[in-house]
């Protein structure tokens, strides 16, 4: 047992290395501009202020970006839950021509870099008149190969007897899916839901090119433009902005962390 204490020490040092930047961000958001520029830097705010948050929600219109992010993430999550569980069930439990080909095709796209589809997708969405619109922000993310894989894996683990029983009772194929099988996948749906929500909340590049006017910005886009625009030197505002982007996700992640880590462990993908 002599070794235990220094194993914990390494663990705690790792903890500090991971957590320190976050803690600094949180404390920094309560500092004045002058204090943020002080050399050497201070740890605790000397003159704590909530002015940064006041500016953020008053002048910078962050509540609107917050609502945009929430709206997009909720619709994207709903789409993934519905559509990925539907095809996931079909791939796992129903026999039909082209099933394997479809599955291989879906899996192959996991390997294709986002950059490959980026330009044509942009041209297409722009030509469809969807640039700078909510559908433009949402539609390309309504389904994901990851979601299909996750749901298919989970459905495969459910016993076939339930389906047989449903058929004997005369339930239609779609009824078996919706009323018998789908309710059993709640853990998988929770995993997919939380991962999709986090992914959409943090999504950056696509919203950056598609949201062209301020009223369509999502939080990361707004924060990025603030950190490079005329507010680039307003470090307090940026820190507070980063807190607003990060904290909802952290709270959500902590609440659902078991599902998140289970999903990663099952499929190995984020």
């Amino acid at each position: 047992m002599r070794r235990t204490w220094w194993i914990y020490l390494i663990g705690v040092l790792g903890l500090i290395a991971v957590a320190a930047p976050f803690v600094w961000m949180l404390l920094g958001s309560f500092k004045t501009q002058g204090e943020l520029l002080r050399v050497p830097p201070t740890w605790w705010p000397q003159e704590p202020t909530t002015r940064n948050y006041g500016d953020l929600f008053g002048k910078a219109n962050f509540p609107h970006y917050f609502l945009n992010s929430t709206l997009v993430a909720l619709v994207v999550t709903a789409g993934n839950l519905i559509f990925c569980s539907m095809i996931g069930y079909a791939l796992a439990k129903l026999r039909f021509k082209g099933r394997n080909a479809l599955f291989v095709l879906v899996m192959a796209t996991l390997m294709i870099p986002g950059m490959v589809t980026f330009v044509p997708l942009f041209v297409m969405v722009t030509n469809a008149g969807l640039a700078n619109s909510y559908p433009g922000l949402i539609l390309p993310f309504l389904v994901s190969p990851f979601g299909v894989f996750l749901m298919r894996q989970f459905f495969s683990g459910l016993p076939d007897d339930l389906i047989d029983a449903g058929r004997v009772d005369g339930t239609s194929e779609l009824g078996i899916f919706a009323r018998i099988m789908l309710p059993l996948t709640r853990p998988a749906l929770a995993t997919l839901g939380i991962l999709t929500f986090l992914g959409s909340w943090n999504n950056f590049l696509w919203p950056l090119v598609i949201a062209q006017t301020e009223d369509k910005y999502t939080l990361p886009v707004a924060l990025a433009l603030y950190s490079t625009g005329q507010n680039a030197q307003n470090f307090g505002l940026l820190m507070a902005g980063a807190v607003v982007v990060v904290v909802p996700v952290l709270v959500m992640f902590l609440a659902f962390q078991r599902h998140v880590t289970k999903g990663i462990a099952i499929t190995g993908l984020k």
Partner: protein
Amino acid sequence: MSTATLQEKSARVRPPGRPSARGRRPLDRQTLAAWILALPFVLLFLAFSAGPVIGSLGMSFTDIKQRDLRTPFAVNGVGIENYVKALSDETFRRAALNTAYFVVVGVPLTLVAALGAAVLLDRGVKKFQSLFKVAYYLPVVTSIVAIAVIWRFVLSPDAGLLNTVLGWVGIDGPNWLASKTWAMPSLIAMAVWRNFGSAMIIFLAGLQGIPQSVEEAGQLDGAGSWQRFRYLILPLLRPTVLFTSVVTGIGYLQFFEEPFVMTQGGPLNSTVSVSMYTYQQFGFGNYGLATAMSYLLFVVIAVVTFIQFRLLREK
């Protein structure tokens, strides 16, 4: 049990796509249901994934520019000109080298940090295991833009966290992101910090799949903890190592967000990556060239993935 159930059962064990006369009716009902369930996905997938992948290949052989945005089908074919242009472009080659640097240094560091953390949590830190696990995973679920805001402070030359800590031990740290030598290592450090938690979770699942008896047997044979790890645990983890290295490798070959938010590829192109340069060409309106570059990247990813599978599976 009724005969209907037996029929269903026999239909189920038959390989897909070969209906027998006896099982035809229920199979057709299944096919119909399957396609109804698959249809929304297939339509969205064709429109927003498969379509653009094919469109990208097509575009890469044309001279399409931003001014052709509204008329993407009225452009001229130029054969492999874009590919030739990309490969003979000095900055593109610089970007390829930078990406290789990032992958070759970043992937092993990430995997070592992830494996170290996983072993620590699985074998050492029993009490607060889930607390540590959650904490180490936090950066993975954090927005890259917020991470950039934080890390710009960590790496800033005077008031920065890193140089302050280095100052305590008498080291005068450089201006990390403005230095041609240090910008890339800074971004690698940031990427390792951000991503190791993801691979750690997979390693943890792998470690927990190894029965305790394996270690006990090693202990009985007098193997020290390092020997047990090296000769018992690590070989059993081979599939997990393969998997995480492939997944991390695919991700790191697309190295984009870190330079995008931290350096824009600078200073003097020292952190420009292939994805980053592709995006820059898109920004300049050179759509044909940008898609050719992204296809080159895709080919490299496919080849590297294939090699990784071969290397790690054998031996």
